């Protein structure tokens, strides 16, 4: 229990440092763009693949259910809501956390055990500003983009299935989506994706940063970073959804 609070505390400190130093001199823009490419560009294919199959599977399940009550017109919006608000951000977060987060923890961990982080510090470079800040910022900026790609690909796949195989009307499919989905539903998903990016980048950089002891230490760190990130993403999902909903309802009531 004590250890849990210690972890939370030290991660929070690490996070505030990363954010505080995000725009400190000297600028880490080129590094950040490199990380964005690694987190974003290199994940596009796997995100598209997941998007297509999630869209297909979900449409089919919902079609079967709605067919029983003759409400197949609403398959479109139901699928869209589920994907935009929940599946796209969570799956994007989980996939990228495993892919890029694991790599971050392993790389920073290796730098720690081979004294490269000490070398950075000795050269008068703040290692958090150099290693963590650009990664966290890159993840925050990139995840909403990936989530958007997931949204588009999944809904296109859903349309393909519904119109071509399940004989729904294309115009009705899109019309109902337009009718039922508000921009804020899409926004909610994108904001959540950004939060998840922040979460996994911070957690993985932090565990990597405090790695102890050789190659085994790096292995443990990578494992720990990825597992913590995934659990946190799933737990935070519920929390953040409700916070966003609360925010929107407050804004609307004024």
């Amino acid at each position, binding site marked *: 229990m004590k250890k849990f609070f210690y972890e939370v505390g030290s991660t929070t400190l690490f996070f505030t440092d990363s954010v505080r130093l995000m725009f400190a001199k*000297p600028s880490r823009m080129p590094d950040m763009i490199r990380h964005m490419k690694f987190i974003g560009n290199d994940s596009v294919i796997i995100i598209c693949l997941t998007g297509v199959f999630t869209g297909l599977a979900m449409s089919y399940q919902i079609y079967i259910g709605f067919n029983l009550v003759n409400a197949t017109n609403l398959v479109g919006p139901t699928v869209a809501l589920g994907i935009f608000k929940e599946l796209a951000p969570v799956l994007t977060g989980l996939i990228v956390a495993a892919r890029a987060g694991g790599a971050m923890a392993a*790389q920073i961990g*290796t*730098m720690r055990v*081979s*004294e*490269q982080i*000490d*070398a950075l*510090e*000795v*050269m*008068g*470079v703040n290692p958090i500003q150099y290693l963590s800040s650009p990664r966290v910022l890159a993840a925050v900026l990139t995840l909403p983009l990936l989530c958007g790609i997931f949204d588009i690909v999944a809904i296109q796949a859903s349309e393909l299935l519904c119109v071509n195989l399940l004989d729904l009307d294309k115009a009705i499919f899109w019309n109902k989506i337009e009718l039922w989905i508000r921009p804020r539903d899409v926004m909610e998903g994108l904001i959540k994706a950004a939060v998840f990016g922040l979460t996994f980048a911070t957690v993985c950089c932090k565990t990597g940063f405090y790695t102890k002891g050789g190659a085994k230490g790096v292995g443990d760190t990578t494992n720990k970073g990825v597992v913590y990130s995934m659990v946190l993403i799933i737990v935070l999902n519920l929390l953040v959804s409700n916070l966003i909903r609360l925010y929107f309802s407050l804004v609307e009531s004024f």
Partner: protein
Amino acid sequence: MEMAVEIQDLKKSFDGGKSFVLNGIDLVIPADKITMLIGFSGTGKSVLMKHILGLMKPTSGNIKVFGKNLSQRSEQELIALRCQMGVLFQHAALFDDMSVIENVLFPLSEHRRDLSKARRLEIARHKLKVTGMDREHDQKLPAEISGGMQKRVGLARALALDPKILLYDEPTTGLDPILTEMVDNLILDTHKLHKGATSLVISHDLMAAFRLGDYIVMLDKGKVLLRGTKEEFLNTDNEFIRKFIDKGIRRS
């Protein structure tokens, strides 16, 4: 004599006071001289070095570098101070995602943005030449060059900002006798070349200590056993040091 580093009653414990890795170190490191720090493996030599660099905080005690306490320096001052210290780590610690030349350029592009790119490249190239690295290796990654070369690149990187204090953590451990002699000579040459520079060399090779050091410091069980010149070491009646010397002489 001017002192570059003064350490008073330095203690360090990693387990909250149960055992002490450094147990009351009192030590001065004179400016402009080569000081050799010797001792068996695990006696806390690397830990002592990290304290001088401010990478580790002492459990108790004081460390003065250039006359001012490390704990009294602000973050900014500490960074400025570190730019005057060059370190060759035990395993070179080159950045493994950067090429040889980028490694040497790194401290320059961090702290000497006032210089033009071409000038920085020129300096980096010069440092590599001084440490004996050929131009053909410039674009290779650290993983693609030998251990001895990595040490040379590490030294070139340490020299990039023309430091006033040079620290070497076991520069020759794991090298063959020829390379060992080469690195030893490199340390001597570097010391002569950088006028006014203070060198601290960690080693467990006694012969090298006698050959290179103006002063020798022997560390054992977290304490300074003896600090003195080569003659003082040869004439000591301390049982432990006699054994260490005899072993060293018999081996070579």
